[in-house]
Every structure is written in structure tokens, then in C-alpha cells.
């Protein structure tokens, strides 16, 4: 069993309620943060822990906190990004729904570290019932004296506000989130200035993912050094992985970073192997926007080392032969799944969710979707594959926010690793409507080598 930090108490009956949560050591970190530590100490502990942003980019959280402008004297805000809408990612939902007080506790300690008196939880609009759960938890915390004026008699005041989005994936991008929170159209802002300098209402703001914030209480209680001992290298601590697709046991798992992917995918403790004894075709390791990897590159890096579930190991080899840990949305495809259809599906999502502010993403995502639709439905041309490659190249890196990149990467990686399958769709348009291409030649060779 790996170490559990976030989900340690998740199975205790009644953990949703304040009393049970408190009995299990809840809110101890707030007491420690307010009475024993200075705000700068907390930032230092988080820096020491090596905790990295769990939203997808993996930026060190302590570093982000230290960028915040405390000298200007303007109010500072902490905004929790709970706008989890990446296809394949559902870890924050699990955390907020079943152990809401962990997030509230994390919000309070993080606000103390940032010397902020107002925190926001920007929650995805579709999570309407979770908004109620969080509001209930906030009310309980306030009644118990963890929120409000003069907390624990220390003179520190804090309030938390839960704000729902209106159903836009783009509002998970931090600056679009801030625009939306201000009541404007959710268009990403130009950076710089970064939110740490000029964020919500023009004031210094830190935007962190739910899981990042929920990890803070443990770090305060046990120290940053203890946290940095968990995991491997610069990937410290534990990570929630939401596994789905053709596996025996889909669900949310907490893993210690550095777990071998083979163990995660095939052991009984985690995913429990591919469903119905089929063979693995491909894996999207961190939510729909990260590059898809074929089985042979997923198990082993290009250098031949076994791949681990960590930021570094998964991105080994760059986008040529690697992927990203991303937000932890782990999607598994067995031998019967169609990569072209899957790519079209992802493309359709990004087309639907593009905000339309900058031209490459607004026009390019729609174009890619239409070309992929043609390929999937038997109207494709051989030149379409090169066209797709060209479109994604023109989008990648040329947009205001990372949504353009996120739309380009799945298409690029699908063509890079599964070009044969795209070509098969063009050459066998009729057949492609009835059956799938199956496993790639290289994948077949890989598995036959394993058997020997």
C-alpha cells in the first residue's frame, strides 16, 4: 500500500461532517499555522516540500506563493481552481464531494500563508451539488470558529466564497477564471502581468488547484521535509489519478509519485489490468490534452527504462516519445478502440470549448474537427493527414492561452504514433465504418516480444 495523504480518512463513515473530520485530526493545521508559524514559515515549508501544482502544469506551489506581491499593500486573494472539466479528469470532484473539509482546511492555511483575508473557490457549474456540500462545510467551519472575524483570538479574519462557473472549460485557465469571477466574459488575459502581480480585481492573486490546496494541511502538520521524502526526485508527494477507460477497476486512486506504470495499470490494488483480458493499445496519461502514447512507449521510455508515474518519467523523451502527467486523467484504450475516432472526439471538445478570442484556436480547432470527422466517416483523403499536421503546428504555441496547445497536442501525437491507422482509414473507408484497425504493427511486435 502506498502512502495516503489526501484520501487517508476518506472511507471513515461521516467524514463529510465537521465533527468526524475534527475527530480525525482535522483543522489541526490551522491552529498550528496561526499560533506556531509565521506566514513566511508556511511558504518556506511548502517550498521545502517540493509540492507541485496538481492542475496540470506542475509549477512548484511554494514558488508561485513566493511571487505574490506583499509589498504593495493591496488586498491579496487566494482562488481555488475547482473548474475541473478536462475529459478524463474527475479527481477534484471526488475530493470535494467526499471530504470537503480537507479543501476548506487547506484554503484557510493557504490564506494564512499568503496573508489573504478573502478566498474564492471557483467551482465548475456542473458540480452544482458539490457547491452545496462546500457551502455546508464552510458554514460548519464558520460555526466552529475556523472562519470569520478574529479566528482563534489571533486577530486574523478570513472568509471563503464559493462561486460557480457557467459551464465553460476555458474558465479553468487561471486568467479566464479570474475574468469570469469578476463577472466578465471568460476570456484568458494576456500574460504578463501574471496573476501573482495583477490578478483578481487587479490585485495580487494566487490560483491553485483543489488537490494542491488540499495537500497543504498535511505539509503544515508533518513538515515540508517529510512530504519531500515521499515520491521520487522532483516529483514529491502523492497524486490523485482518475483512471478510466478499458480497465477492470476505474476510479480515483492516490498514488505515491514514482510508482511504475506497469504496477499502476496491472496490479489489483489499482486499475486491475485491461478489461476482458484484452491487450493495451494506448494510454492518455494526464487528461485529454496530453499526448497519447502507444503501449510500447507507455511501458518503456525510448531509452528502454521502465516508465514511472512521475512528472519527469512520463515526460521523458519530450513529445516525440513521451507525454505529461498533466492533471492525472488516466484514460486507457484496449486493442479494439479506434484512435481516429478518439482524436476526433477530443477535437470536437476543444472546438466546442475554444473561447474564440484569438484566431488560430478559434478557427483551427473547428477546422481540425471537420477534417477528422471526414477521416473517421470515410470521406478522408491522404492529404488530409498532412493538412492536420500542418494545422496543429500553426496552432501550437501561437495562442494566448494553453487551450490552443491542448487542442493541438492530441492531434499531433495521434498522427505521430498512429499514422498507419489514419492511412488505413483513408484506404479502407468502407471497412473503417464497420471495424477498427486494431493494434499497430509495432505494438503487436512489442507484445509478442513480451510473451517470449
Amino acid at each position, binding site marked *: 500500500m502506498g502512502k495516503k495523504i489526501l484520501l487517508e480518512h476518506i472511507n471513515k463513515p461521516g467524514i463529510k461532517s465537521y465533527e468526524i473530520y475534527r475527530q480525525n485530526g482535522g483543522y489541526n493545521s490551522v491552529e498550528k499555522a496561526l499560533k506556531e508559524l509565521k506566514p513566511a514559515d508556511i511558504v518556506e515549508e511548502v517550498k521545502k516540500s517540493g509540492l507541485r501544482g496538481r492542475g496540470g502544469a506542475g509549477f512548484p506551489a511554494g514558488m508561485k506563493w513566493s511571487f505574490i506581491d506583499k509589498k504593495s499593500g493591496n488586498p491579496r486573494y487566494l482562488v481555488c481552481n475547482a473548474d475541473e472539466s478536462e475529459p478524463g479528469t474527475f479527481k477534484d470532484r471526488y475530493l470535494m464531494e467526499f471530504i470537503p473539509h480537507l479543501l476548506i482546511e487547506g484554503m484557510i492555511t493557504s490564506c494564512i500563508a499568503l496573508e489573504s483575508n478573502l478566498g474564492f473557490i471557483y467551482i465548475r457549474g456542473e458540480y452544482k451539488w458539490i457547491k452545496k456540500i462546500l457551502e455546508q462545510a464552510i458554514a460548519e467551519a464558520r460555526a466552529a470558529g475556523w472562519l470569520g472575524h478574529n479566528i482563534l483570538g489571533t486577530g486574523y479574519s478570513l472568509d471563503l466564497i464559493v462561486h460557480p462557473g457557467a459551464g465553460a472549460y*476555458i474558465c479553468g485557465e487561471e486568467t479566464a477564471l479570474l475574468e469570469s469571477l469578476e463577472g466578465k466574459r471568460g476570456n484568458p488575459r494576456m500574460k504578463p502581468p501574471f496573476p501573482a502581480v495583477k490578478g483578481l480585481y487587479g490585485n495580487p492573486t494566487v490560483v491553485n488547484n483543489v488537490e494542491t490546496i488540499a495537500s497543504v494541511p498535511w505539509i503544515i502538520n508533518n513538515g515540508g521535509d517529510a512530504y519531500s521524502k515521499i515520491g521520487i526526485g522532483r516529483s514529491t508527494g502523492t497524486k490523485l489519478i482518475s483512471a478510466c477507460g478499458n480497465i477492470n477497476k476505474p476510479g480515483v486512486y492516490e498514488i505515491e509519485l514514482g510508482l511504475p506504470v506497469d504496477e499502476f495499470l496491472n496490479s489489483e490494488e489499482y486499475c486491475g489490468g485491461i478489461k476482458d483480458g484484452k491487450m493495451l493499445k494506448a494510454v492518455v496519461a494526464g487528461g485529454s490534452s496530453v499526448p497519447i502514447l502507444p503501449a510500447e512507449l507507455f511501458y518503456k521510455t525510448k531509452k528502454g527504462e521502465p516508465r514511472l508515474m512521475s512528472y519527469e518519467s512520463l515526460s521523458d523523451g519530450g513529445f516525440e516519445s513521451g507525454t505529461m502527467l498533466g492533471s492525472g486523467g488516466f484514460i486507457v484504450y484496449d486493442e479494439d478502440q479506434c484512435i481516429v475516432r478518439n482524436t476526433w472526439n477530443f477535437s470536437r471538445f476543444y*472546438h466546442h470549448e475554444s473561447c474564440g*478570442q484569438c*484566431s488560430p484556436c478559434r478557427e483551427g480547432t*473547428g477546422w481540425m474537427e471537420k477534417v477528422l470527422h471526414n477521416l473517421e466517416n470515410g470521406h478522408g483523403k491522404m492529404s488530409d493527414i498532412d493538412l492536420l499536421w500542418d494545422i496543429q503546428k500553426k496552432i501550437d504555441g501561437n495562442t494566448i492561452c494553453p487551450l490552443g496547445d491542448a487542442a493541438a497536442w492530441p492531434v499531433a501525437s495521434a498522427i505521430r504514433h498512429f499514422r498507419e491507422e489514419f492511412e488505413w482509414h483513408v484506404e479502407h473507408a468502407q471497412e473503417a465504418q464497420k471495424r477498427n484497425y486494431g493494434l499497430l504493427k509495432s505494438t503487436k511486435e512489442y507484445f509478442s516480444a513480451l510473451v517470449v
Partner: protein
Amino acid sequence: MKVTIDNIEIDVEPSTTIMNAARKVGGDIVPPAMCYYTSLKGSGGKCRACLVKVAQGSTADPRPMPKLVASCCTNVQEGMVVQNITSPEVMETRKGIVEFLLINHPLDCPVCDQAGECDLQNFAFDHGRQQTRYDFERRTFDVINIGEDIKLHMTRCILCYRCTMVADQLTDGREHGILWRGDKSEISTYIQKAVENDFSGNMIDVCPVGALTDKHFRFRNRVWFLNPMDAHRDCKKCSGKVVLWMRGEEIFRVTGRKDQYNELKEFICNDCRFENYDSKNWIVDGPRDIANESVINANHYEEGTKALPKELYSKLNNEKWENV
């Protein structure tokens, strides 16, 4: 601060953008701008037409920037080295941007009033490819009236957001904005309400394409058949400095004065723009200086006429004009 753009070194004030530094040098190295507008706060960064490569971030940190940056909203640093037309990567990307902007554009230049003074037309002429690779249906919208004076062809819009910024920053009370998202987004007033205020006409001038057109001028003439004349009048609301677009004695339309980058120097009021089509109301200063490569300049002014004394222009007579 010393900056090098396409091997040309220039000294600029701190917190100048790359775009403005390049404009100071002038000529070919100025990146194209479809959405940036100097006088509109917060404009720029959206069309990505002005992307340039920063080969060296600054003297202190000489690393190149990892991605192409929008020159209209990136400030220069001491010792920055920028590549615009000297970078094949930038030119290739720009080609892609033209293609993206055109895939949902109707390309109805032959019947569009903006033709001849259209930023997109110029941009596509300079950087576009000969033929489109897009063979799907283009998005279309109905043509709608927004108020007495303006017509909106959403189909032609490239979503530069300039007009919404005019509405936001210039006029009293915002009256229109962007609805929906992605390639379905459209400029609109709330349930087709009219745009009614004294400066709304400037939306027509800031529009880089033919999406917002002057209802008084629509289909009445092509811009290259008209003689643009600088003129002014006493106006209580604005500076009254305009350009009259004339053919003979008749004024076909009135616009603000645009500089070489097609940006208005001063915004004018709707009274000047839509109410004064009588040439008696204006004092004509002389023919407008139009860039040599512009189609508007095609065959109007012969060399030397510009040097004539201004008094000659105060009385407008087309016959005399041709005899000069």
C-alpha cells in the same frame, strides 16, 4: 533602451512595445496588426498576426523566448533582439494566421464596401497563399442593422474586438459585445437593440474588415473612385477634423483621419460623420495624403498637385481639378 529589430538597432523609451518600436523604424519590418489599435486600451494580442520571434530576451538574460510573442503587447527589454521578416518561422506562422482568418471569411471583396481599404485584404495579399485548403461550409450569419447608421455583416468579422472596445471606452454606456464562444461567437447588441450614441460611428472606422459598414455609403461607390479630401468644421462634440470622400462636388461619406497604419488619430462624432453631406458645411484643407501602394491612390493625384497652394482647393470644381 536599445533594441534590434531585423538587424536594425533603435533606441526607444522603456515600456514601449515591440510593435511601436518597429513602427518607429517604419518600412517593411513593421508587423501587421489586425486587432491592435493604439488609442484603444486593452486592444491587441488576439489576431496573432503580429507574432514575432525574440531571438534574445535582453542583455541581462540573453535566452530566446520559447514561443513567438505578440509584438503589440510585449514590451521591449534592453538589448532585445527581435526577428520579424528575417525569420522564416515567423513568416510561415503568419501565412497560417491569414489562412485561419480567411477560412470563415466569405471573400466577397467584389461586393464589399471595405474593399480597397481593408486590412485583411492587404494582409492576405502580403502573406496569404494562392488557394484555400479549406473545403467545408463557412459559417454564415444574417446581416443585421445595429441602429440608424450602421450595418453589421457578422459573416465578415474576424473578431478583433476593436468595436466593442470603442463601445466600452469611447461611448457612454456599453451597448454591444460578444455573444457565444469559439467560432460561433458573434458581435451583437442585446437582442438586436440599436446602437445609439454620439460616437458609435467610429466603430465603422476601427473595423479592419467590412463587418461594420456605413449605411449611408453602402453600395454607392467604390473607395478608389472617390477623392479623399482633408476637411474640417467647427464641431462642439469633436475636433471636426475629417476626411471627405468626394466625387465631383458630392460628398459620399465622411470618415475620421487615419494614419499610415489605418488607425484614427482622432475620433469624430456622428454629427460630423452622418449629418453633414453638404460640401458647404466644410472647409476643405486639401487632398489627403494616401500611401503610394494603396489602391485609393491609383489614379487621382498626379505628382505635383499636392504642392499647389491650399487656396486652390477651397473651391471645388472637378473640371478645374483635372486641368490643373
